[in-house]
């Protein structure tokens, strides 16, 4: 694995709960990497540490060889502009229209003032996600799947190098979940964006991921390509995978 994005010995606790206890994982540039694990093992905590919403108690996160944890605030903001994050519930700004939501990172994060350029970008993204006529709608008027797609469009507005997805298909019906997974694949293939997913959709994970990391007991217990992990000897991971795939047989 290259040194594009690396998590080194990451620790994070909330009070007496030690959620992450020395996480080590690397993410290849241009790859789709999924983090799987049981509920409550700290998958969301891990990616929130990567994006900087949470600060680790110990350890480091290196982006292109530079520390994100120890960087000055201005430098950290500049590094953060290379990242996008799709929240589980999309986290759209409910006082803004869809168009304003998608334009927000470009206008407020990058300081873009050219209205024509902004409008063009917004319309391109709306067409890419298949919602070309929803520019003036408000988030409350959209379905869950539509909100998820608008959230994805918003993350793509600034053409990030890395996209983090926090359970992108949770709560969606199978058809919509497949649509979202296809969008993730398209994001990776069409734009070359490095994608990091937290997901419980194990079957989709094995289908779309280049690499998979298994988080258990506060650490990455196994990491590798899907075909390598499917042959793992790790007892918890074996049970995790076999339970997930045996549901299909039922």
């Amino acid at each position, binding site marked *: 694995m290259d040194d594009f994005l690396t998590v080194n010995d990451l620790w994070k606790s909330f009070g007496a709960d030690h959620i992450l206890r020395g996480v080590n994982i690397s993410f290849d540039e241009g790859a789709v990497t999924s983090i799987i694990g049981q509920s409550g093992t700290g998958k969301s905590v891990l990616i929130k540490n990567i994006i*900087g919403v949470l600060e680790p108690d110990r350890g480091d996160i290196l982006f292109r060889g530079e520390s994100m944890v120890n960087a000055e605030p201005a430098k950290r903001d500049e590094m*953060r502009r290379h*990242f996008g994050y799709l929240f589980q519930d999309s*986290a759209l700004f*409910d006082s803004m229209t869809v168009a304003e939501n998608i334009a*927000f*990172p470009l206008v*407020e994060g990058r*300081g873009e003032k050219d209205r024509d350029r902004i409008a063009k970008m917004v319309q391109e993204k709306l067409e890419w996600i298949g919602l070309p006529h929803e520019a003036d709608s408000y988030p409350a008027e959209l379905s869950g799947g539509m909100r998820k797609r608008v959230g994805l469009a918003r993350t793509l507005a600034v053409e990030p190098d890395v996209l983090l997805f926090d359970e992108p298909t949770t709560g969606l019906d199978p058809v919509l979940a497949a649509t979202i997974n296809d969008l993730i694949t398209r994001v990776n293939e069409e734009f070359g964006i490095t994608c990091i997913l937290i997901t419980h959709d194990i079957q989709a994970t094995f289908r779309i991921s280049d690499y998979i990391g298994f988080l258990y007991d506060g650490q990455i217990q196994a990491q590798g390509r899907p075909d390598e992990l499917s042959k793992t000897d790790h007892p918890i991971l074996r049970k995790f995978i076999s339970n997930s795939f045996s549901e299909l047989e039922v």
Partner: protein
Amino acid sequence: MADDTRKSGPNTRLAAPGSHAEERNYGVAGIIEALGRKVYNLFFGLGRFTVFLGQVIRNIPRRPIRWRLLWEQVERIGVQSVPIIAMSSAAIGMIFALQLTMLMAMFQAESMVGAAVGLTLARELAPVVTSLMLIAKNGSAMTAELGTMRVTEQLDAMQTMAVDPVHYLVTPRLVASVITFPILTGMANVVGLVGSYIVAVGMLRVDPGGFFNQLYGLVTPTDVYSGLIKAAVMGFMMTVICSYYGFHSGRGAKGVGQSSTQAVVTSSVGILIADYIMADLMLKLLY
């Protein structure tokens, strides 16, 4: 069915295995522990508030200045509050004129009503009542809006886009409050005096010449400015306190509701305490 808890001593109850209840001691040690926890929480909260206050102050001079957001807040906090402030200050002016005229009639000093109402309004009532009304109207809304944004991860989303939520959300509200609170207080002074004139002169037959002579003779620009300065400080306090509770709101509708209530109570008590301190200082420094 077995009890959910088991006793291991006269003063302790332990949770059943697998449950999540904390061990609680109900004896003297338990009281001391509870007291210690409250003191710890108090200092933790004060520390967290101080950090937040530092973030707010640090962001005031930062660029960019978001003029659109600023004017939106001036309209919401200021313009949309004009009717309620006008009504409340008119009512206060009228009530005070009624009560003071009756009182001063005992000393045949009815003509002093204008000055008495003017002084009271300018120094105390206009800034305090205006601020309390604005806390109830805008402060609670501010906390609820920011609290909802917190629990739906909108504040986190902003952070992931390298946009400081304090600079984007709090700074425009803060500047708008510091601008509009004194303007609304000035309006409250005028409307309150008009209300007092209607009651004192129009209804209770106080001599209008005496009303205005005493008003102009005793109420000085210093009285008015001191009230406006108080209003600006109260606007600052309301925004910081209500924003703090919004940013640190608990989860769910209950958490947001609790935060709104705490924000209104804390802001109201805070400005009353601040009013006393400022009144004491101003009396020493300005008079």
